[in-house]
């Protein structure tokens, strides 16, 4: 496999291709949209969704090679490309990945085709525009994962926000305008502060030469700011990323955005876009401002906010009457685990955080897809409307149970591996906070089991539920990969952990933590 990939110089073109393909797809959809102007709505939908699916499948197929082609034990950027973009301003097209980024890239490329399948029959209005937005967003999201130039990163960062704003605003539910504006305001507020910080950093580092420095590696290696300034800069990045995570108390845009977004929008938002926040911390906020990040006061604040988010999200999700809101608040709780793991500054915590990121992408994505399936059948998401549907939809019941248990962190599923690593890693440095966070295993069981019970168990009292059809083959087909992922990552996560190990340790080393090296790796090096 590796030889084959090397023969086609895979590493030199793959990242750029992954970024360019969705953009080309937008053009294709635009052309098709003009060609199909006279066709009826059903035909348009058919063309648009088939094209989008084909593009995303190609994208996913291309990205698979990253699994083998890279040297994950290296601390160098892999598959790196540097081209001048606006050299006079010090801006380059510089991209490259490490293990953490690859894991998230693969999550993205694999979820996007499933998202299209999940929107297969749900999106009837303006299908070309919808799938074009998804493609555009994909470029933005992948760009954030690969960008190694802060200006380039910022471009991709904004590029992914606007399609999401439009998806919520155009294909959303009844309060979509409110939700989309709230989403936009929260995220814009954060990213503008970050832009100011990026410009400051670039010009400060550029210094006397007059050419600002946006290059990630140069910035990370120089980091020549006064301690006070570093705190402010970290704060600016923090706001931008914390809104995206979302960290308590900047999370209130999330439930509204989810409830109003169409299924596909919710899946992308929860599974991939929320990862931008935590990835931003790993890639930018921590390594660029290590002195601020490892400041005891800052760490205390971060850990406290993370734990509040974990407990608060779980408690609030327990009392939600709406299926989607419950899952949205549970995301606040899960992403809190990621933040706790990050700021533990231990190898287990950091790698656990990456695992939780990945798991949340799979499990919550699956939950939103399942909610969408139910919504298409019943046009409601209120728990009171359901009950007992395991009798008429056994396959749906099985899928929902598996995903719920994964979300709960049951051992054997992916959820456990991430949560366990985060907690055991965090306990070494912040034991009290970790103990409080661990109580969420109880609350998570309460809200998720209650959710499962109110949907699939209890008496089948409502007539409209008694006539529901079970999942069709398309729906089964799109859930199967997710279920496989849930068990694979739960039972044999070692391949992922080995791939993220070096990258995680590099961040820990940077912020002054104690990286624990795998013993096998030691023997390899000797």
């Amino acid at each position, binding site marked *: 496999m590796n030889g084959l990939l090397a023969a086609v110089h895979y590493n030199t073109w793959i990242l750029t291709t992954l970024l360019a393909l969705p953009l080309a797809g937008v053009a294709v959809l635009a052309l098709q949209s003009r060609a199909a102007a006279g066709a009826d709505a059903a035909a348009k939908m058919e063309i648009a969704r088939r094209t989008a699916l084909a593009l995303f499948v190609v994208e996913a197929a291309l990205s698979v090679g990253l699994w083998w082609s890279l040297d994950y034990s290296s601390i160098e950027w892999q598959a790196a490309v540097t081209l001048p973009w606006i050299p006079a301003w010090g801006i380059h097209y510089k991209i490259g990945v490490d293990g953490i980024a690859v894991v998230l890239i693969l999550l993205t490329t694999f979820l996007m085709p499933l998202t299209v399948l999940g929107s297969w029959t749900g999106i009837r209005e303006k299908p070309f525009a919808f799938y074009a937005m998804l493609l555009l967003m994909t470029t933005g999201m992948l760009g954030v994962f690969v960008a190694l130039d802060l200006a380039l990163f910022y471009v991709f960062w904004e590029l992914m926000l606007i399609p999401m704003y439009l998806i919520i605003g155009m294909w959303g539910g009844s309060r979509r305008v409110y939700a989309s504006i709230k989403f936009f305001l929260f995220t814009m507020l954060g990213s503008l502060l970050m832009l100011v910080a990026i410009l400051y950093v670039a010009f400060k580092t550029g210094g006397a030469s007059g050419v600002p420095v946006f290059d990630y590696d140069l910035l990370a290696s120089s980091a020549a700011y006064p301690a006070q300034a570093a705190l402010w800069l970290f704060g600016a990045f923090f706001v931008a990323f914390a809104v995206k995570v979302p960290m308590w108390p900047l999370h209130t845009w999330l439930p509204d955005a989810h409830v109003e977004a169409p299924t596909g929008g919710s899946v992308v938002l929860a599974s991939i876009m929320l990862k931008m926040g935590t990835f931003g911390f790993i890639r930018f906020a921590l390594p660029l401002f290590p002195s601020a990040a490892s400041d005891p006061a800052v760490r205390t604040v971060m850990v406290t906010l993370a734990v509040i988010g974990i407990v*608060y999200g779980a408690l609030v999700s327990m009392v939600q009457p709406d299926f989607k809101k419950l899952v949205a608040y549970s995301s606040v709780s899960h992403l809190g685990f990621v933040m706790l793991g990050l700021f533990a500054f231990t*190898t287990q915590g950091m790698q656990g955080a990456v695992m939780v990121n990945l798991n949340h992408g799979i499990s919550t994505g699956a939950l939103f897809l399942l909610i969408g399936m139910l919504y298409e059948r019943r046009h409601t998401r209120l728990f009171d409307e359901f009950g*007992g549907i395991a009798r008429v939809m056994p396959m749906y019941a099985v899928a929902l149970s598996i995903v719920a248990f994964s979300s709960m962190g049951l051992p*054997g599923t992916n959820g456990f591996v991430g949560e366990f690593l985060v907690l055991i890693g965090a*306990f070494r440095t912040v034991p009290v906070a970790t103990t409080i966070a661990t109580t969420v295993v109880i609350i998570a069981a309460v809200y998720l089991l209650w959710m499962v*019970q109110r949907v699939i168990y209890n*008496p089948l009292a409502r007539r409209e539920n008694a*006539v529901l059809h079970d999942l069709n083959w398309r729906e089964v087909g799109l859930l199967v990969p997710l279920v496989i992922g849930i068990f694979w990552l739960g039972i044999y996560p070692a391949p992922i952990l080995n791939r993220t190990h070096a990258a995680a340790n590099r961040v820990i080393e940077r912020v002054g933590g104690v990286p*624990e090296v795998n013993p096998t790796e030691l023997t390899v090096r000797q």
Partner: protein
Amino acid sequence: MQEAHPLAETAARFIWWLPTLPLIGFLINGALALAATAKPGPADPSADHGHDQSTGPSHAASDSHAHGDDAHPPRHRFARAVSVVGPGVMVLAFGLALAIFAVMRGAEMHAPYINTLFSWMPVGDLQLDAALQLDQLSMVMVLVITGIGMLIHLFSIGYMQDDPGYARFFAYLNLFVFSMLLLVLGANMVVTFVGWEGVGLCSYLLIGFWFTEKANADAGKKAFVVNRIGDFGFMVAMFMLFANLGTLNYVDIAARAGQFAPGGALVTTICLFMLLGCFGKSAQIPLYTWLPDAMAGPTPVSALIHAATMVTAGVYLVARTSMLFSIAPVASLTVALVGAVTALFAATIGLKQWDIKKVLAYSTVSQLGYMFVGVGVGAYTAGVFHLVTHAFFKALLFLGSGSVIFAMHRAYHAIHNHSDDAQDMRNMGGMKRYMPVTWVVMWVATLAIAGIPPFAGFFSKDEILGQVFARAHGSTLASATYLGVSGATVLYAIWILALAAALLTAIYMTRMMLYTFHGPNRTGDGAQSHLAEAPWIMTGPLVVLAILSAFGGWLNLPETVTEMIPLGPTAVLEHWLEPVVGGATERIAAGSAHTAASTEQVLLGVAIAIAVAGIALAWTRLRPSSLVPKPLAEPSTGFQKVLENKWYVDEIYDVSVVKPVYATSRGVLWKFFDVGVIDTLFANGSAALARFLGWVGSQVQSGQLGTYAWLLVIGAVLVIRAFAQAGG
């Protein structure tokens, strides 16, 4: 660098097949269950909604027909295959367990045999493997789980035969056995934890097996949530162990346990957190409330999960981590004290329950308390011994009650009676005439649990009582201080509590037997004629279990008895478990004088006298002939009512914990904080501010081009002036 383990090239290397076999069974049965019910929907789920409405009712009607009680539903489509696969994998697993046991008996083994399957979580210094550990303790558990499990699987073929969820049932049951084997075979705490949560999951699924009743679904959820409270403790204990010892493998923990200061705060805290886990899983105060509710599941489930195996996992874990508990006397005393209090408390509730399964449920809680007394005072062998004998007789009691309920159901079913309760003892009575086999085996089990020699329960219970007494006379426990009280005093209190519980046990068990099997029949004239003994597939396992309950005591005969009557080899189990728990027992028992033979004989006599007294008391005082069927019974009053309502513990928890948490989450956190403070203040507040600033700005916008031009010019002049000043 190390020599090969004596088991390395033997049948023990197939140890991973033990959990794998039931897992295969689960996968096959699960697939069959799904295949029998699943019917993929149309390609577009929302398109032909109108069409659905017209065909819907007939679909719903046929569906309810299939699940209804009235007509005899056809057997499950794949009933034959399921009946072969489900119990089949158990037979194979039991056979393999016996083979490995035979090898182990012949081998000299001092260290556990570790079978590493693959690297599970390699993260820095946390190198967790998916590894199985075989030693004498896990072997005992494996034999119990596969042996009893096999019998219960066989029993279920008969018991569940008409259930539409036949395949699903066996799938869950197989999955349970898989998890339970993982629990006892795990070589590190995390693999154990996988099994630990896995059995909780199966328990949840099986309690809520008939999920369309809200009460059943609620009971399953309650069981899982309460267990999770315990799991929280288990997890924190793991974190603390890893943070301090840097390992979670049992072998390494044992090797490094010396790093802890004996009796120190650290090791005590770790043990107490672990205990929380044990109390959750093994239904001890304060986390026992889920177990009685768990009786909502099918009766074979109650026998396998909620009596014989899963609920004993806490006892197993204490024995497994005895290297820690033996250096934490305060934690050990807590184990014993909570066990003793639970034993007595649950027994009082058992006195006044009318549901036959509820009696057995509280009896289980009570007997688990006994086991905790055993492992708490460092008598790990005695605790495990009682675990084994209890598995025999309690599985028998549950299956026997299942056989009675089965007969009652059939009788009610035959006369289309859906209102009467098939589990209420007030509707039974005189069942010995209709079910002689069940009657006999149930009495064997009753005598065993009550502690009548020579039945199994007598020996195990007596050993625990004797060890408590011996420890009080000098041990690290007796010399420790427990909350300001001397350890010896606590141990004597435990001994008295345990004796009292033994008396109550004899009383409530005799009461159950009297009301169920003796006296006149109260089932009702129509149904009475349909009462009959269960088929052989169900009575067969009962008879096997009865033999085990009668002779299980031979596993570990005490010296006191063999000296008087030469029944057989002495203390077999103790010698067997010596390599695993011997060291820990010695550490705890250090300084104890050997109890005199005469004292031991007196203790033995006291135990027998109490058991006989309990049975006699119940036999003479209770009048089954004066009972009336449930619908006619008058509500009880006073203290009886308190007992019947289980001391109102559920209600107290509800008011003090459940409701406040919900109310706070909804009222304060969500409605007030999230929607009120953050949204109003931050989000909508900032929007309002922006709107206000916009209004101010809009006042400048007169729409008059002239005004704009003036402003422009004034602005330009100001800018030029500023530049001019800056420039010079």
